[in-house]
């Protein structure tokens, strides 16, 4: 009961915040007011039951709280006008039309993910204002402290106010320039949840679920834009395979060994449909999200590892590294090449890439295929010297033992 209640407050809180920021013109004031309204709801609803219009209840309460805060701070210059406007707003019934909520949410998204803010700041702001996470939770996600997160959020709000980062909807012709910053926030959120650099994997917060939630929201708000649907497709297709990534004992299961019956078939179908729709809308050249989603779709659509069309995957990676080169894409490209064209080709590609723990782990697997077990074990020793999540580390240790045994 308490969880669904908290979830309702969190989801509605974001919508209310979006509207309140526009009406009061102050991110901090709006956040404080929504926070106080959420606390009031958490106190009242378990007793009174959830009101028939929870959003209206929260809206009216948040506005009252905003007025209270303004009154308390009346002494501060420049706040009088906001206070007067609030008096007017406070009289309405709290029902905000859906179309207004939609536009306010988009305003909030585009302000939080404004290119004038640094990428980690955008992520922190999105988690705070769009996902309603606490600074302590955000600190956990960004591998930093609550104090540091609060400092970052405060600086961001100050910059939004002082530099006048506008709280407005980008025009249609501005969207191509503005959407990449928004999509990269969602994608990097998902990536840090799906493939964290290190840690026990267990977060307080399911970051993947938060990222999917944001991707769903952005797609729902901008259904005609190909980039948000590509991001959602990519997340759905990746998320669909998550249940098979660990076995019952929490051990890492690599793609070739995964029990494909544990994949979420519904999510795969929806992801593929979403990708096709996105490709249809973009018409021209595929973007990085579409290519990554297409690669995920290639894996998701075949019944077994041996049925994988590796040449198609190689082709997609070739396109991906040409438009969005990254070390992880290059590594995956090398793996796909080894599958399609033989181990020697894969190893040759690896030689061109900078070593990293993952690079060593990939090289180990390729060497082992050529029965070079001693070298493979050595590569894993090097991989184990670097950072990795605990399950990944355990997996590498097990593989290393296998290769040592085979090396005799």
């Amino acid at each position, binding site marked *: 009961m308490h969880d669904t209640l908290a979830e309702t407050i969190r989801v509605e809180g974001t919508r209310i915040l979006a509207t309140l920021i526009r009406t009061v013109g102050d991110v901090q004031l709006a956040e404080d007011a929504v926070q106080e309204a959420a606390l009031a709801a958490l106190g009242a609803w378990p007793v009174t039951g959830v009101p028939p219009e929870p959003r209206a209840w929260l809206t009216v309460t948040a506005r009252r709280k905003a007025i209270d805060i303004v009154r308390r701070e009346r002494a501060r210059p*420049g706040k009088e006008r906001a206070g007067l406007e609030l008096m007017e707003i406070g009289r309405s019934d709290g029902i905000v039309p859906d179309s207004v909520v939609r536009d306010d949410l988009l305003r909030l998204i585009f302000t939080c993910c404004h290119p004038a803010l640094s990428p980690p700041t955008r992520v922190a702001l999105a988690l705070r204002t769009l996902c309603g996470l606490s600074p302590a939770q955000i600190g956990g996600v960004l591998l930093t402290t609550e104090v540091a997160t609060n400092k970052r959020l405060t600086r961001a709000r100050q910059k939004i106010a*002082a*530099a*006048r980062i*506008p709280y407005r909807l980008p025009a249609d012709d501005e969207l191509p320039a503005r959407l990449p910053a928004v999509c990269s926030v969602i994608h990097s959120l998902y990536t840090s949840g799906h493939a964290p650099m290190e840690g026990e994997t267990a977060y307080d917060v399911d970051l993947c679920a938060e990222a999917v939630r944001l991707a769903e929201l952005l797609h729902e708000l901008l259904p005609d834009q190909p980039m948000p649907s590509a991001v959602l497709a990519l997340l759905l297709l990746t998320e669909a395979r998550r249940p098979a990534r660990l076995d019952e004992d929490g051990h890492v299961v690599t793609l070739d060994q995964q029990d494909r019956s544990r994949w979420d078939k519904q999510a795969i179908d929806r992801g593929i449909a979403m990708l096709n729709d996105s490709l249809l809308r973009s018409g021209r050249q595929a973007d990085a999200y579409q290519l990554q989603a297409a690669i995920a779709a290639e894996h998701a659509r075949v019944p077994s590892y041996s049925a994988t069309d590796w040449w198609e995957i190689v082709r997609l990676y070739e396109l991906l590294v040409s438009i969005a080169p990254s070390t992880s894409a290059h590594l995956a490209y090398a793996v796909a090449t080894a599958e399609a064209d033989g181990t020697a080709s894969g190893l040759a590609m690896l030689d061109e890439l900078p070593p990293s723990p993952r690079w060593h782990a990939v090289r180990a697997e390729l060497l082992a295929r050529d029965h070079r077990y001693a070298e493979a074990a050595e590569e894993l020793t090097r991989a184990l010297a670097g950072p990795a999540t605990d399950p990944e580390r355990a997996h590498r240790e097990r593989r290393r033992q296998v290769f040592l045994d085979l090396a005799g």
Partner: protein
Amino acid sequence: MAQYLALTYTADVDWWAPEQASELAEYRQFALDHAGSVKASAVLHPTPTATVVRVEGARGGKVVTTDGPYAETKEALTGYYLIEAEDLEAAIAVAAQIPAAWNGAVEVRPVILAR
């Protein structure tokens, strides 16, 4: 309306040198094109002409001056424009037209206006 100081960071050039004439003309053209929003502007002599002033201790302390910048840098402060704009996006749109934006970088800082 808000005001922004657009600080240009480029190669540490001597604007008076004949070879800078055509580039300087581009900056002048920018200021003419955006006369409506450019409230003030200046180009600066190169950093070797700079003097750093400090007062030891507190007000009234000994005035200590040092010559020039501390170290050679690739990009130096070479000028500024005071831009008036509706919001940051409008300011960025104007700043992106300053030649320094492609010859170096432009730092856009909001100005605190007296209430």
